[in-house]
């Protein structure tokens, strides 16, 4: 059965800290892995990763994929209170129509 597991489930840090969120997956016919930030209702897209070892970066956020070990990490440096959200990892496959979502990591950044 295809599955996506995220860790930790929740995290509380102080502003300025650096955090690393983990996503491991077991799917057949992997195509891509996506990271989303969910603050209120709708997730907003952060990154799509398809190749191992190539870091994607956007401001203080970066992510990398390891297709051999079947995981990805999302790094956030110099965290701010506005980074407080649920971060979702999802995996897309070449078969079927759905993206498989992890349970998410709830990040709280306190001043």
């Amino acid at each position, binding site marked *: 059965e295809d599955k996506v597991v995220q860790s930790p489930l929740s995290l509380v840090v102080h502003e300025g800290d650096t955090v690393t969120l983990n996503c491991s997956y077991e799917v057949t016919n992997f195509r891509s892995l996506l990271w989303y930030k969910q603050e209120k209702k709708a*997730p*907003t897209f952060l990154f799509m990763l398809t190749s191992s070892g190539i870091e994607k970066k956007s401001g203080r956020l970066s992510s990398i994929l390891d297709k051999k070990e079947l995981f990805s990490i999302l790094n956030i440096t110099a965290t701010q209170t506005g980074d407080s959200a649920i971060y979702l990892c999802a995996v897309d496959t070449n078969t079927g129509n759905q993206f498989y979502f992890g349970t998410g990591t709830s990040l709280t950044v306190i001043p």
Partner: protein
Amino acid sequence: SAVISQKPSRDICQRGTSLTIQCQVDSQVTMMFWYRQQPGQSLTLIATANQGSEATYESGFVIDKFPISRPNLTFSTLTVSNMSPEDSSIYLCSVVYSYEQYFGPGTRLTVT
């Protein structure tokens, strides 16, 4: 990218009633997806809405409870029927466009 609108954005409904959620996309897409996110949980796919054919439901979801319409390539509706408090959730419409997934703003449903 694809821009998705959903309505209503929120509603409070009494048990036993039904609510229809509308989803509009600014681009033509083959498949539209309906997700549910119950409090404290991740997204769960309810069904895939296919234009011109019946929706494909995931395990645990049935057409009688969640009827879906897909009259054209830019629009879909999801009805939550005979609601109970367990249906209180966020309902999200989603499309895949150029291999990226986009979500509507969501409908927060509370059933009392």
